[in-house]
Structure formats: C-alpha cells, structure tokens
C-alpha cells in the first residue's frame, strides 16, 4: 500500500514541465493527486517520474472572459464550487460538484486533473461535454484547443499527448435564462456514478425548446451526448408526456456491460429515469 519508486520534478514554469514530460515517457503529471495517489498506493499506477505542478506559476487562476470560464490546471474542485462568479456564469457546475467525492477530496483534487484522469463515470468530464467546452493543451509544438467531444476517448484515456500539459479547461457559461439540471445515482454519497445525467435547455418566450444539450456518464466507456433525447425534446413545450417520450429514447446509449455495480438492463432503466428527472427539473429552473 505504498507507491513504488519514482523520480520527482517540481518545475517552476510550463515550459520546464513540458521538458520534464518529454524527457521521460513514463512520467505522469501530479496536480491534486486525488486520483493518482490512491492508484499509486495500490500500485495500479507506477509512473517513473512525477512532474508536480505545485510550483508552476499561473496555473491556479480562474478567469471568466467572454462568457467562458477558464480554469487553470491547479484550481481545486472546492475553489470552483465556492466561486460565486463561476456560479453566476454556470450554475450547473455547483450542481454537479455536490456529487464529486467529499469535501476533503474536493479541497485537494483539481478540475483539470479530473478531466485528464477521464474516468468514464466522473462528473466534470460530463459537464465539459454538455456545455460544449474544451481544454487547452501545451506541448513542445505550442498550444492547441481540444473540444471535449474530441478529448475523451475511452475510460481513463484522452487525446492529450504524453508530452502535453493541459494548462486550462474552458467551460462556457450557460446561455441567459437556460434551464439546467444534474441528476446522479450512486450506491453511496461520493462514489463514482452508476449513471448521471446533465441537461441544459434553452426555451423561447412561449416555452418552446429552441436548443437542448443532454449528456450522461457512467453508461459507457466515456461521457456521451444523448442526441436522440436532444432531438426529441427540441421543439416541444416540455409537457410531462414530451419529457417521458424524450427520456425513453435514451436507453440505446447504454453501452456498459454488466458489472459488479449494475447490469446493462438496470443501467438502461436508471438512465431513462434520470433523464426524465433531469428534464423535469430543468423545466422548472426559473429562466432568470
């Protein structure tokens, strides 16, 4: 239950961090360590080197610019959760954050770290996907933005290259007046989701849905957009029947096989109900 041997670097700039990563193919990045350190304690992960970001300047900032929340690589979950400006710009984040582990873990774990860890049942990757966000990667060749839809590949696998550092995540604010909801089911509070659903709906003055973004995590190898649900609910006035019909179309999105937590059939049942609940709750979010 102790980590195996590793070399340690604590660079003071992004450039130095990238250099350390480039020089050691077995290196891993250490931010808050709340997923990596347990994996190392259990020896599920044995990096040859840890590149600790704690001394890298400029990674601890959260900036809201042009409606986009830019979250630096060392910003902790709890910082975002308690940040009122972030909450004003995107209230879905605080809603989802309640389900991320426990406060002592959120105090240390980082948002970008969770995105890069990319657990298929984690909440923050789903939020990034549903809001249409992106991450900014910096590597030896410069910077590039990677859209959430292209970033998450598979359980714990992203398109970040081994010598790239995600310097910040870019989470769009919600459109003015949009309805939103986050619903999750897990066995115990703070566990990874068996299934979770995030919803954003934009409605016209007569209540008709102009646009909807609906996604789920825990139901496959990565977070997914439920485009059939989005299409089904768009153009409706979100009556109870509309919501029920739209929710039904979510069941084909479950690709997770039976596992120790749930069968595929149970996950389908769960997903339909979570979508229904999330749509109903988003329907009632006041369009302020």
């Amino acid at each position, binding site marked *: 239950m102790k980590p195996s041997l*590793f070399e340690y670097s604590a660079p003071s700039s992004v450039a130095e961090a990238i250099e350390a990563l480039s020089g050691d193919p077995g290196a891993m990045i250490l931010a808050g360590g709340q997923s990596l350190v*347990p994996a190392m*304690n259990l020896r599920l992960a044995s990096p040859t080197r840890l590149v600790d970001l704690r001394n890298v300047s400029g990674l601890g900032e959260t900036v809201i610019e042009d409606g986009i929340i830019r979250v630096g690589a060392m910003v902790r979950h709890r910082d975002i959760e308690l940040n009122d400006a972030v909450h004003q710009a995107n209230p879905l984040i605080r809603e989802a954050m309640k389900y991320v582990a*426990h406060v002592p873990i959120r105090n240390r774990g980082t948002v970008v770290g969770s995105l890069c860890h990319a657990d298929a049942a984690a909440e923050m990757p789903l939020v990034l996907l549903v809001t249409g966000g992106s991450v900014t990667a910096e590597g030896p060749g410069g910077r590039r933005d990677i859209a959430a839809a292209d970033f998450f590949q598979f359980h714990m696998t992203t398109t970040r290259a081994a010598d790239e550092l995600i310097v910040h995540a870019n989470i769009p604010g919600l459109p003015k007046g949009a309805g939103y909801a986050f619903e999750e089911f897990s066995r115990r509070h*703070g566990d990874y989701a068996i299934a979770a659903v995030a919803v954003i709906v934009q409605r016209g003055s007569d209540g008709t849905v102009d646009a909807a973004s609906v996604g789920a995590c825990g139901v496959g190898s990565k977070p997914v957009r439920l485009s059939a649900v989005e299409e089904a609910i768009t153009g409706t006035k979100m009556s109870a029947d509309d919501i029920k019909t739209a929710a039904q179309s979510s069941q084909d999105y479950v690709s997770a096989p039976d596992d120790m937590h749930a069968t595929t059939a149970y996950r389908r049942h769960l997903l339909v109900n979570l979508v229904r609940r999330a749509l109903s709750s988003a329907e009632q979010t006041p369009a302020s």
Partner: protein
Amino acid sequence: MKPRKHSIPQSSADPKVMVRMTINGEEVEREVSVRMLLSDFIRHEIGLTGTHVGCEHGICGACTVMIDGRSGRSCLTFAVQADGADIRTIESVAGEDGELHPIQQAFQECHALQCGYCTPGMIMNVLSHFEAEEDLDLTDTGIRELLSGNLCRCTGYANIVKAVRQAAELTGRT
C-alpha cells in the same frame, strides 16, 4: 570467498527531497523519500501518531488533517506536496492544559466513539467545517452529508451525528 552475484548498492535508489512545513505551529524540516506520504511523514518522521491510517486510498477519512486551513487526506498527499504548507493535526485541537475542544467534549459526552480509530479524522473534518465561513446544515441529513467522507465501523453514526449537533450548540455555530 566467492564474490557476490549482486553487489549491495552504495545508496538507496529512492530519491530524497528536503521538506519544510509548519505542523501545529512548529516549523519542521526533514529529508525524506519523495514517495513518503504526508500521513507517514506526520506519524513516522514527526512522531505525531494521533493521525490514523486506515485504508490508505482515500476512502475511510481516518487520516484527515488540515492543510492550509482546509481538510485533506494526508494519505493522498505526498509529504513533498505539503512543502511550505501549514498543517494541523488532532494534537493541536485540545488546549495546552489538556482541556478538550468543544467538539472533543461533545464526542466524549455523546459516546460518539468506541474504539476511537476514526475519531481524529472525524474531528478534523468537523473542525474544518466549523471554522470555515459557511452555513452549516444541522439537520440529520446535513450532518450525515458532512460526515459522509469519514467511515466509522463501531458506533453506527447515530451518536456521532448527535455529537456534531451538540458541538455546534456548545460553540454557538449555526
């Protein structure tokens, strides 16, 4: 004598690093292995054994300490990550004369512990919430939520929930 097949290395391959931090108001400095966990640093290097180690992968909460004023798992933090940090452990909670902190007093009066293994982590977690500028939800559900990251295998939580509420009354915390 036949030469050894594998000669003993001159030094350990385990990289070392100098770590400085404040623990319970006192500056400490040690050269430790980079892979030393903060929990082991506090217990084995500093000798403060009030911080307990349960699961060592972040589930049980027994090792919870305060890191720069916020609760954190010392088993999910390398000692080197706490370089320059201000650490508080359970040993800092009671007064110098041994007078119990109201949270400790409430735990004692409500019989909120049996074996006591989880108690230091429980108290550090509750203390961090009491000290933070946040509204506390002192309903049963709220307290259980607050305690949800700390596992107890003895008392079944009912008395712990009671103790947190009593501690809130004792400290005038709402």
